[in-house]
């Protein structure tokens, strides 16, 4: 084993989109590990770092590959000496030095040889261009001309150093070398370094290589800025991560804006600052938005305050725009805008938003009737829900659709139930996010999503694979989440069958991945007939709780056995004839069932699934005894059929909550 050498690879690129850097490093790691594997190197510790302008990989590698023994199989021995000679000649060795190997197919000529390990530097020089080329990007570009290499942005320099020697290769007009580059303005264009001082030299040249260090620099900087001000940072992890990968040397600064802008809705101010300007927002001691913000520069210091001033000016311009939109938009009521929706297309084949509005209004009212609740506020909300699409503010800040509608509705004196519903109509925005807090909001969101789903399905726009342009999966997830968490006992069975299946699929995902139910619990409950998803949830909770008891576990295995036995017979009935009983154990089971099942039935109808399943679990001794002492396959057909009916009675009853035979028990999983 030769000594190891430090290896450093730096790919210098024009500014890579911030959100692609971490995935690119993961891909680089994967491709490099493949290189290690293929060349017989131990997978070693690989350190990866990225900034907007560089992807860096560092590790230790042996100077050369180990020599290795190789066996080359030749012709079968029965092919004769002529074949052996040919094989030897092709491999440039004397026929005498061939060995004979015994394989399952017979005796074969073979040659053993030592393959000399190659220089690691050579191997890297061969492999690195391919690794660079293979890095996958969401959207790549040409820069040296049509048909040439594509990459996320132009590659401008490459450092590849093994020990103190350059791994020489070239790609797209760039040759690898030993010199790195600093920050665009705070660093040199050529930086000499060695493996011991790389990060230090970069830092002197305005580049903090480690993302963790950049993150900490932003966080510490903010703390320092806020010390003693009474201001509180509104945390925004996504924004923080964006800034970490938008900068090579981040420094936060504190800016301010005129207090009069606080008259605008906080939602608008916050969206402009966070989404459009990438500023953190700040609250005062009472938790209200303060007229301050934190911008993050890609440089060390703002000595003359010019950066602060520039950012303040652009923010003021944006707020001015927002105020203009706010005032402009309020000159027409949402009600007046309803007619305008005729010229806003929902989807080319599905008509306008006005048509959608009419459908959703009707649907809200139908859902209200089905649930037996007064939906008049929600119907009103549905009528004006989409009108904010015609406002200047939403055209400019599209992420505020719904929210703006709600704010305008409030300003125009719509009742709380109405404007809140409009405000919340796009919730939940993800599986983790909350559903609308108001009942009207839930109804509106539900009706809107069901309408979108049903309309799209009706013209065959059904998501497949990763293709889901209308985000129908998210809509369906929203439906599931609102139904369950809003406790809306709405039957979804009446939907078109493919949509019902689609929703069921999302329900599976929700209960399993979001709520943590086991897949067998889900299978058991979904196999039983359930009226709605709230009911499914109640059964799942009951099953999860009861299955942990010892009796239940054993009973579940018995149910599997019962299911198997019954599967092999023609549809059994449930008309048990007591006079046909022969063994005491079947008489006893029947007695127990007659006692327990009516009680179970009542509890089930009341929705008390936990107690119902506990009641069932008391049957375990009787069931066990039955299987110990009774031969179901009695010779006499009548007796046999009576026994099957007895088991079937039990199965049919209990399966009305959950198909217990679906439960994986320790005995069945072995």
């Amino acid at each position, binding site marked *: 084993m030769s000594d190891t050498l430090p290896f450093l690879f730096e790919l210098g690129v*024009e500014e890579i989109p911030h959100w692609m850097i971490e995935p690119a490093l993961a891909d680089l790691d994967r491709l490099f590990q493949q290189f290690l594997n293929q060349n017989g190197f131990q997978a070693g510790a690989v350190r990866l770092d990225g900034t907007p302008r560089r992807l860096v990989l560092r590790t230790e590698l042996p100077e050369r590959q180990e020599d290795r023994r190789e066996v080359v199989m030749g012709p079968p021995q029965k092919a004769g000496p002529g074949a052996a000679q040919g094989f030897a000649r092709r491999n440039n060795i004397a026929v005498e030095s061939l060995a004979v190997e015994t394989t399952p197919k017979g005796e074969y000529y073979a040659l053993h040889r030592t393959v000399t390990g190659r220089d690691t530097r050579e191997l890297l020089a061969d492999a690195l261009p391919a690794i660079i080329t293979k890095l996958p990007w969401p959207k790549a570009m040409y*820069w040296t001309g*049509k048909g040439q290499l594509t990459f996320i942005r*132009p590659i401008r320099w490459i450092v590849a150093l093994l020990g103190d020697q350059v791994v020489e290769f070239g790609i797209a007009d760039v040759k690898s070398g030993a010199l790195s580059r600093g920050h665009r303005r705070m660093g040199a264009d050529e930086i000499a370094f060695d493996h011991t001082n790389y990060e230090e030299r970069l830092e002197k040249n305005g580049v903090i290589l480690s993302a963790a260090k950049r993150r900490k620099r932003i966080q510490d900087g903010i703390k320092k800025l806020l010390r003693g001000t009474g201001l509180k940072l509104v945390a925004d992890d996504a924004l923080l991560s964006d800034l970490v990968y938008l900068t090579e040397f981040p420094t936060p600064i504190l800016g301010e804006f005129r207090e009069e802008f606080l008259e605008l809705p906080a939602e608008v101010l916050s969206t402009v600052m966070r989404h459009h300007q990438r500023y953190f927002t700040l609250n005062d001691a009472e938790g209200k938005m303060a007229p301050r913000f934190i911008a993050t520069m890609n440089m060390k210091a703002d*000595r003359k305050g010019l950066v602060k001033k520039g950012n303040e000016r652009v*923010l003021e311009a944006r707020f001015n725009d927002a105020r203009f939109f706010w005032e402009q938009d309020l000159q027409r009521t949402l009600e007046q805008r309803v007619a305008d929706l005729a010229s806003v297309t929902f989807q080319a084949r599905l008509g306008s938003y006005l048509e959608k509005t009419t459908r959703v209004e009707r649907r809200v009212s139908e859902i209200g009737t089905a649930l037996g609740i007064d939906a008049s506020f929600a119907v009103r909300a549905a009528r004006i829900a989409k009108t904010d699409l015609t406002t200047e503010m939403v055209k400019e800040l599209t992420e505020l659709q719904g929210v703006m509608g709600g704010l305008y509705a409030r300003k125009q004196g719509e009742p709380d139930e109405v404007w809140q519903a409009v405000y919340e109509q796009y919730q939940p925005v993800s599986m983790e996010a909350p559903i609308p807090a108001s009942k009207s909001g839930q109804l509106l969101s539900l009706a809107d999503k069901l309408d979108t789903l049903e309309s799209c399905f009706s013209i065959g726009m059904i998501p497949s694979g990763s293709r889901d342009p209308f985000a129908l999966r998210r809509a369906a997830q929203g439906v599931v989440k609102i139904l369950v968490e809003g406790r809306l006992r709405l039957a979804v069975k009446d939907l078109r069958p493919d949509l019902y299946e689609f929703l069921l699929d999302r329900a599976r995902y929700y209960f399993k991945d979001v709520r943590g139910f086991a897949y067998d619990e889900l299978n058991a409950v979904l196999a039983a007939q359930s009226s709605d998803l709230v009911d499914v949830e109640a059964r799942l909770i009951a099953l999860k709780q009861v299955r942990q008891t010892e009796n239940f576990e054993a009973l579940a295995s018995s149910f599997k056995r019962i299911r198997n036995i019954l599967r092999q017979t023609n549809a059994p009935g449930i008309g048990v004839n007591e006079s046909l009983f022969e063994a005491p154990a079947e008489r006893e089971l029947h007695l127990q069932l007659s006692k327990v099942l009516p009680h179970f039935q009542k509890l089930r109808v009341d929705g008390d699934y936990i107690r119902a399943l506990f009641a069932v679990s008391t049957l375990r001794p009787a069931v066990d005894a039955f299987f110990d002492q009774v031969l179901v396959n009695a010779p006499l057909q009548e007796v046999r059929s009576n026994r099957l009916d007895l088991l079937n009675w039990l199965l049919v009853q209990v399966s009305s909550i959950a198909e217990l035979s679906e439960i994986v028990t320790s005995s069945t999983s072995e």
Partner: protein
Amino acid sequence: MDTFQQTIFKLKQFWAKHGCVIQEPYDVEVGAGTMCPETFLRVLGPKPYSVAYVQPSRRPADGRYGENPNRLYKHSQLQVILKPAPANVMDLYLESLAAVGINLDQHDLKFEEDNWESPTLGAWGIGWQVMLDGIEVTQFTYFQQCGGVDLDLVPAELTYGLERLIAFLQDRKSVYDIEWVEGRSYGDVRLLEEQQFSVYNFEKADVKMLWTLLDLHEAEAQRLIDEFKGLGDGQEHDKRRFPLLAAYDHVLNCSHTFNLLDARGAISVTERVGVIGRVRKLAVGVATAWMEQQALLNAAPVEVAQ
């Protein structure tokens, strides 16, 4: 402090020094400097070309009657095309900022992903918006496709928003307060125009007439494209002298007329897609024909009379 026009002079001089043809604005209404033939047609094909020009860019829907300090119906872009993009194009760009007096040691500069796409031109590119102290001052794009045609040489397109950049340089909160030349503000020069065109674009433009214009320009452009396509192998001479540039002017007229109709609220979202498709078809038609004509001209250039 430099005036509006001095900054423009400096930028032009900077790019002239780096080998650009300095062109004057194109004299057909366009929504962006990219649409001028100096960009749209010149980026096609294998011939290198570098050019810079100020292009007044008209976006009727952005008009605000001169009442909004930062929004204009007609703003000025300084458009730079470097075909092919040199390897140091980013450095050149930074130098150009220094050339107009921005001390980059004292200002924050970020390149944020912003890919550019023009559905009406069948064109797209990859690039950034350049943020200077949080203000977008330039759109930097590596062109990939134009008129539906893959580009042989990848040009860099730098589009400076002049009002925004110069308001920044002059530290003005309203573009109308920019000093155009000593003693005369941007407002003095342009406010009336913003007001009158806002009134026209939003209130007075005759929708029926605009639709007619759109149809006429479309028909004329299409007629020329079809005629070019109809020329056979023996008609190289006719192909070489064919007025594709005139056809393209009619495409630009279509595009501007479409923008006027849009500002007038006369185009529903459904129709919008359709009209964009019509204009794109023409743009692609001209670009394809242009490629063919260029191939002929490159093989045997038109002789210039002595």
